């Protein structure tokens, strides 16, 4: 997959939809192309996080490691982003990401990302909105879980 195709793909992601072509190209260029075989881990829960992954092909599952065992959270397909929380805040990975198939991904480095955000103010708004939507989604899910517990 070429740089220009990656740019097209990034454009489809809600985070980057507003970003102009040049900036997106810069982001894509500054990011690393990585590939994983089935079973290989993109990152592990508890590690320090310094990058997010845009999945270009294949499927990645995110897993929560608990003392009692692993709980699968979800499967992430093409056009999804994993590990993006760490782009905005410090902290450890809250889950493990593992390749289920052969995976091609774009590894976006935290420093590059913050630099791009720094240079394009309206993107900050966009990212905040996307995060807020995800938070509402998560809160909904949590409510549902709690509601189930009461039943």
């Amino acid at each position: 997959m070429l740089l220009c195709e990656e740019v097209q793909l990034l454009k489809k992601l809600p985070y980057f939809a507003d970003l102009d072509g040049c900036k997106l190209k810069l982001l894509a260029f500054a990011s690393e192309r990585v590939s994983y075989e089935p079973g290989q881990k993109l990152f592990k829960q508890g590690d320090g996080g310094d990058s997010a992954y845009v999945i270009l092909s294949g499927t990645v599952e995110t897993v929560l490691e608990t003392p009692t065992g692993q709980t699968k959270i979800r499967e992430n397909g093409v056009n999804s982003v994993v590990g993006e929380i760490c782009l905005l805040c410090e902290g450890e990975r809250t889950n493990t990401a593992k390749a289920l198939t052969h995976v091609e991904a774009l590894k976006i480095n935290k420093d590059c990302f913050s630099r791009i955000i720094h240079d394009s103010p309206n993107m900050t708004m966009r990212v905040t909105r996307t995060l807020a939507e995800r938070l509402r989604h998560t809160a909904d899910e949590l409510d549902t879980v709690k509601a189930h517990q009461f039943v």
Partner: protein
Amino acid sequence: MEKNLLRYIWNHTRPQQIWVLIVVLVSMIPYFLSLDLPKQIINGPIQGAGFETPNATQPFMEFEINLPLLGSIYTFEGFQLGRMQTLVALSGGFLSLVIINNFFKYYINTYKGRLGERLLRRIRFELFDRVLRFPPRRIKNIHGAEIASMIKDEVEPFGGFTGDAFVQPAMLGGQAVAAMLFILLQSFWLGLVAAVMVLVQVIVIPRMRRRLIELGRQRQITARHLAGKVGEVVEGIGTIHAYDTSNYERADVANRLGQIFKIRYDIYQWKFLVKFLNNFLAQLTPFFFYLIGGYFALRGSLDVGQLVAVINAYKDLPSPLKELIDWDQARQDVQVKYEQVRDYFEFDDLIDPATHAIASVGQPYSGEQLAAINLVIEDEGGVRVLNGASIRLARGESVAMADNIGRGAEALAEAFGRQVWPTSGKICLGDHDILELPESIAGRRVSYVSADTYFFHGSLKDNLLYGLKHAPVEPAQYEGDAANQRRWEIREAQMASNPDFDVRASWVDHRTTSISDNGDKSDIKNSLLAALDKVQLTDDILQFALHSTLDAQSNPQLVADVVAMRHALHNEIRSTGRSGLIVPFEPQVYNKEATVGENLLFGKTLQPLDKTSALLDSDHFYTALAKVGLLRAFVDTGLTIAGNMVEIFSGLPPDHPFFNQVPFLTADDIVYYQQILQKLGTRRSHALSAEEERAVVRLTLEYIEPRYRLGVLHDDLREKIVGAREIFFAELPAHLRGLIEHYDPDAYMSYATLQENILFGKIANRNADAPSEIRNIAARVSRERGFYHQLLRVGLEFDIGAGGRRLTLVQRQKLNLARALIRRSDFYIFNKPLPGQERRLQEEIVSDVLTYLRQQENNPTIVWVLSNISLSKLFERVVMFDNGEIVEDGLYETLREESGIFKALVA
């Protein structure tokens, strides 16, 4: 050392001085004869004295040997020769006298030179020996560079003076007296005139020179301080830059240079004034000769031959006289220098030479305990840092020492390590004061390590084994010329009272290594590896090895093993099905992880392929590129890359971190490429100038498709590049071909590092885990093949730079510790050897070192001054210091229960 340099010289070179004096005296005979001969030639054959008739003959070479007391002992009648024959014979005699005189000069000068150089060697060594014997307190106040300047430069004139010290006055004095006598014999009055003038010179000139000597002394001191200052600046260069004080240092040095200039200029002025006066006086005398001698000649009381002889003899008088005066000046000069140097090196409390006596085998000594008795230590400021401490350390104990307030524990450790001398009280190793024991006992039974690391310029290995070099263990073997050379070295060393220990012998004592299982050299290797392992330095050393380049010619075996390791690694990667990790270099295949340039050259270049490389700078490169039909394609590709780069990077500030993604581009380059593109517009690439074309081609050469993903490298171009490899190389002229070393799977590349040689390919960019995975596989394979030890051996040859500056602080501290762990000692004193290192590392190293040393069957005592008191749990006994006094001393468990300072600190 004697107070007077002349006395020093006389004491050490008496027989030689007497011998050379005798030779000088003997040389006076032909000298005197040669003075007399011109008169004979002029008066005899030339003016015809004794040849009044045409057939007259005169005896030639008739002589009589007269000795002052014995009278005539031999008479020779001589040959009868005619006037012409006599002229030829006398002239011939004159020539032979010249030859004989010069031969004497040659012999005397060579002899004096050798004498001087030997004395110089002696005095230099004696000063150096004193440096080694300086008491610790003294060492703190001296400048290394000043000492070096004294030993190297300031004593230098002594050597030149030595040969002249007694010979010069004798010889020149003899000559002067001879010439003077001769003049007096010829004419009393002329002689008297000459004598008066000489007296004036001898009295006045030296007086004027006293000032010169004083100036010389000042020059010596300022020059020495300058050397010290320069040394200081070099040592402290980091501090100077950090605080922006470089201009202060410039001012300081410029001021010193100004002082030196002033002194030197004064010296010149005086010197030439004295010279002027001296020359004037010397030439005033002939004036009197012409006037008075001419008067006598006119009056007829002096014949012309006599007058010519007197003037001739006088010609020889000023130069010995002047040199005699010079000699006296030199004598005063070196005497002043000598006193200056001597004062610096003369103390009452120098370490006794017996303490340093060489001992090739460690003497048996039962030092079952190390004890401090009423020890008082004061620091440089006179403050008591240890106040009457007494402690006894038995063999096999492990003792943690720590300070609450003050630095008593450190001071005690320093005293154990003989780094400071106690003010009162003493340290006993066994039954004797440790300062009275020879270093061959105190310096081997006790190993001392502090944070104050010092290393000598050399390899890591030399420094690690430094603590084992007490005495030559195995003599070096010499044959033929080398043996003669060695014999000469020994003889000369003895003549100058230097020790004749052979520095080329093997000094590393394999009997005193910490691991001593086999009693042979493998103990050194095992101790070394173990010590490195315990201080966690092995990985660093492997890295040194992997990043080093080797000269293939001088390491044929190693080079072959590297290539074998390369094949083994590639086989292992293939057989485990991980071929995706690495893309090897193959002659007929385009390596997609390598740059276009690397693919074209298919070899390693000595310099990286950038703007400054000789290869890209040369016209031949582009001519060759055009010949293989790639130039146009590379220019067009380069333009596409330039377009993309300009689009991506234009407008970014020069310090933007994204420029790190493309190491070959800077913000200035982007502007340049932007200009090229704008100028070109829609025209074809032929419109570019040669320089622009090259700039664009450089972009293509740096391009890696999977890395930059611009999609500009098509399959047919790749094939063309691979196909052009050989022809392109052949098209380059020989001097450029020499810059490229072809990739050959079976050959070692001298231009590449060991790591590149082993990998022989590019690590797949895409696979995030590839580097670590390859490292693991390579580590496994190299251990299996035993290649690991060879790598370590290469790493141990790493040059650590002056004072170990090429190592990081952490590496230096670890190396310092490892250097002590290699040695077998009864007592190990560790004085905060790893300050400022992270806790986890400290704990691991302390614990590993303790375990390692406890394994030794000689049951050593380990004393560790801790900066991190929580580590005291690893020790049996704990000693707490507070304000320079021992406040708690007991087993770790006991102290932890008692409510004291220790408990408070550990809790």
